[in-house]
């Protein structure tokens, strides 16, 4: 019984076809004779976090996305290069092709659906579904976010295949606004979607449909015969997402052949798998950037944005801390080279800005501090104007990699005469993003804080709240994510300019201006760009990297080699 099970598992791995994205521009090699996709089989993917809900309106976990890539689709999606390509739409409307008309500070976007599209229950996909998706996002109080939908004034549906979206402002990320469509005919009569089956088995137009959701155990997806690329795709018959308690168990299952693929490994874990033949690590540089942000205001709860941090208020001190940060060394030792040196918050995509930030030079750090008047005391710690160079350094508890980074920097900064005290907090506090939950970044009760963040494909959603001076959180208004409390009118102007136009070239230049100024202020050390590392058995073919979507983004093209 065991032998046949292993054979089945191996068989399942093999069915990933060479990746052709629907209407996409992803480059892929033409299949050789031995690499022709094979039909059939079941792939088992081990996920070490169970999605609590799959409904796109409520889901907030990465793992929900991973499952949903096989089930749900929308009007357009993103390629690895960060370009928008159509999925259910005939083309992506732009100003150039006439799909987008700008009048003053408003815009209209006209979407044309492909013909013959069907939901997995056989009902046709129409523009009414586009309108319904918008309506439900605004109506339901429990949706995860209304970003984008709250910028829409109205939607016209002149015929079943056309939806004209009237925006109230210039909203640049419009292509991904309807990134997962919801079926009107199924949900319009539900009083409360959160209480319906849609949470566990959302209906979509994708290559698979969810046939079984066993809480805590597994989620089963089976071929959708109403998929627009059927019967050619998907190649796999079934995909099973198996819930495992931890990433170590997932790796054990991968090694034992009980799973064909595993999601989200750390670099250290992937090194373990590198040594095993038959297993492949997929390392995809992602947009997430780990950084250390410095508080230019005083370190206290509900700090006054106009106050000045006695140590970090001095730009020379901030510069010195950067010069004394051995980024490449950290990447080599802790990430086995599987990450890249950070240079800005936007590391990928059309608006990518590559800095750079100055490199590791401890001598320069010491010189800078000497020249700026930070004098070393008898205990080796510098002081200036009565302020001792002693800083608190905060990151999330229970993260072994971050703790090691802290140790490295503790030593490096001690060597240049800066004393650092580690004061970590659990991620439920540090990353809670709310003043009531005592997030020190929001309160301003930190000196140095380390965390990672990824911009969406359109950088405005992160650049505006984080680096614009109007978005500094205060006691009166806790909104805003400008944790460094930077107030630079030139940066503000550049960000505003980027948000006021749809011209991608102009926006890219504006972002570059803003981010260069940000780097020149030395308020953030961009440590490294995180890579997404997933592992699969070699027999599971058809994977294509995509930094902007989860690794299951082209699951219709996966096949198992026998």
């Amino acid at each position: 019984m065991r032998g046949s099970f292993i054979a089945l598992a191996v068989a399942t791995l093999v069915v990933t076809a060479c990746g052709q994205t629907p209407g996409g521009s992803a480059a892929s090699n033409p299949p050789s004779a031995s690499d022709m996709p094979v039909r059939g089989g079941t792939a088992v993917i081990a996920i070490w976090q169970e999605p609590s809900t799959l409904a796109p309106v409520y889901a907030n976990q990465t793992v929900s996305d991973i499952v949903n890539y096989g089930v749900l689709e929308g009007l357009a999606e993103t390629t690895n290069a960060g370009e928008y390509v159509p999925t259910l739409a005939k083309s992506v409307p732009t100003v150039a092709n006439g799909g987008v008309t700008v009048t003053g500070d408003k815009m209209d976007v006209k979407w044309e659906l492909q013909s013959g599209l069907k939901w997995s229950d056989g009902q046709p996909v129409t523009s009414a579904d586009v309108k319904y998706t918008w309506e439900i996002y605004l109506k339901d109080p429990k949706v995860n976010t209304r970003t984008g939908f709250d910028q829409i004034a109205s939607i016209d549906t002149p015929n079943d295949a056309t939806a004209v979206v009237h925006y109230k402002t210039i909203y640049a990320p419009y292509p991904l606004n309807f990134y997962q469509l919801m079926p009107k005919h199924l949900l319009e009569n539900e009083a409360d979607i959160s209480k319906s089956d849609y949470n566990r088995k959302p209906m979509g137009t994708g290559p698979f449909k969810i046939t079984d959701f066993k809480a805590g155990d597994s989620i089963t997806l089976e071929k959708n015969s109403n998929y627009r690329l059927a019967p050619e795709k998907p190649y796999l018959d079934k995909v099973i997402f198996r819930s495992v308690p931890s990433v170590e168990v997932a790796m054990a299952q991968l090694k034992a052949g009980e799973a064909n693929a595993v999601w989200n490994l750390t670099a250290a874990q992937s090194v373990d798998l590198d040594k095993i033949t038959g297993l492949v690590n997929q390392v995809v540089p992602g947009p997430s950037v780990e950084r250390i942000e410095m508080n230019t205001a005083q370190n206290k709860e509900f700090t006054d944005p106009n106050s000045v941090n006695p140590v970090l208020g001095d730009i020379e001190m901030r510069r010195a801390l950067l010069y004394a940060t051995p980024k490449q060394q950290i990447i080599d030792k802790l990430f086995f080279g599987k990450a890249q040196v950070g240079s800005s918050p936007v590391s990928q995509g059309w608006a990518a800005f590559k800095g750079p930030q100055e490199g590791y030079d401890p001598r320069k750090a010491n010189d800078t501090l000497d020249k700026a008047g930070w004098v070393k005391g008898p205990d080796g710690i510098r002081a200036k104007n009565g302020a001792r160079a002693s800083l608190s350094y905060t990151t999330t508890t229970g993260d072994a990699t971050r703790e090691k980074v802290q140790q490295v920097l503790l030593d490096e900064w001690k060597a240049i005469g800066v004393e650092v005290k580690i004061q970590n907090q659990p991620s439920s506090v540090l990353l809670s993003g709310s003043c009531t939950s005592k997030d020190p970044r929001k309160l301003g009760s930190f000196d140095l804080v380390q965390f990672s963040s990824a911009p969406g494909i359109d950088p405005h959603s992160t650049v505006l709240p984080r680096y614009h001076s109007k978005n500094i959180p205060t006691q009166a208004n806790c909104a805003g994510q400008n944790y460094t409390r930077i107030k630079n009118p030139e940066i503000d102007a550049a960000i505003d300019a980027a948000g006021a136009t749809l011209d991608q070239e102009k926006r890219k230049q504006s972002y570059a201006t803003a981010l260069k100024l940000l780097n020149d202020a030395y308020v953030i050390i961009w440590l490294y760009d995180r890579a997404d590392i997933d592992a699969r058995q070699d027999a599971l073919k058809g994977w294509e990297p995509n930094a902007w979507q989860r690794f299951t983004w082209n699951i219709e093209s996966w096949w198992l080699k026998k």
Partner: protein
Amino acid sequence: MGRFVLRRLLQALPLLVAISAVSFTILKLTPGGPLAAYEGNPLFTDEDRARLEHAFGLDQPIPLQYLSWLGQFVRGDWGYSFASHQPVLLLIGERLPNTIYLMGTVFVTVLLLAIPIGVVAAVKQYSWFDHLVTGSTFAFLSTPTFWLGLLLIILFGLQLRLLPIGGIDTPGQPFNIFDRLRHLVLPVATIALVQLGSHVRYLRASMLETITQDYMRTARSKGLGERVVVLRHALKNAAIPLVTVLALDVPELFAGALVTEQIFGWPGMGRLFWDAATRFDYPVLMGILTVSSGLIVLANLLADVVYGYLDPRIRFG
């Protein structure tokens, strides 16, 4: 006896309310909340957070939140999970059979093994068997379950490849009793070995004390066979403390073994609690905590009742 039970039940109600109030307050005062999970979404704005806080009732003062939860709870509405939006009762109902399946098997296994081992060890005190039993029970009882579980997984799952690593069954396969049994072996062994460590010792100690009693000598001198003496007279009396201990194991049938379920990926109540705790899913946590505390109170009562039934010297005031 009836009045005793009634009085205890009436005392239990305010106790349970107090327990739920304290648990609720502690949960709410713990830094962090169910909205921390939304932070990873770059599109999540502060307006969204404010809206969700209102939708989940988190913007109200804690005592008001507690009272509204309590009001719904006693009317049978256990609320909806913040994370999955499923009714709490449904979530518990999905996981409970799996936990009862696991913990029930453990319970029966421990019962069936503890009695013969304890009895034989006591009767043949100082024999090689007795030494083996006392030594190994000491070892198992001192072993943390998570360590033992991981060790068994490494040995039987990874190195010898005899048994599956985790889960309740093989995904994608139709129901197969042998598959189920194979998946059951390691988790049951992990919990049962540690529990046996203590239960065997309880019984052995109790038996040793009983065997030396005067009435045992009387029974033997009446000419009764050794087996009747041991089983009918000694065991029956020695079993009383063991029954009390077993009755206190009953709440575990509901709450599950938190750590073991995590290690083996068992889709039971323990994992539900763990997931809800990490996500600050208050409705689910309160549902599980209240039922667990209720069961513990009931189990204590049950233990007292059974003890009183077995030992006629006990009188209930």
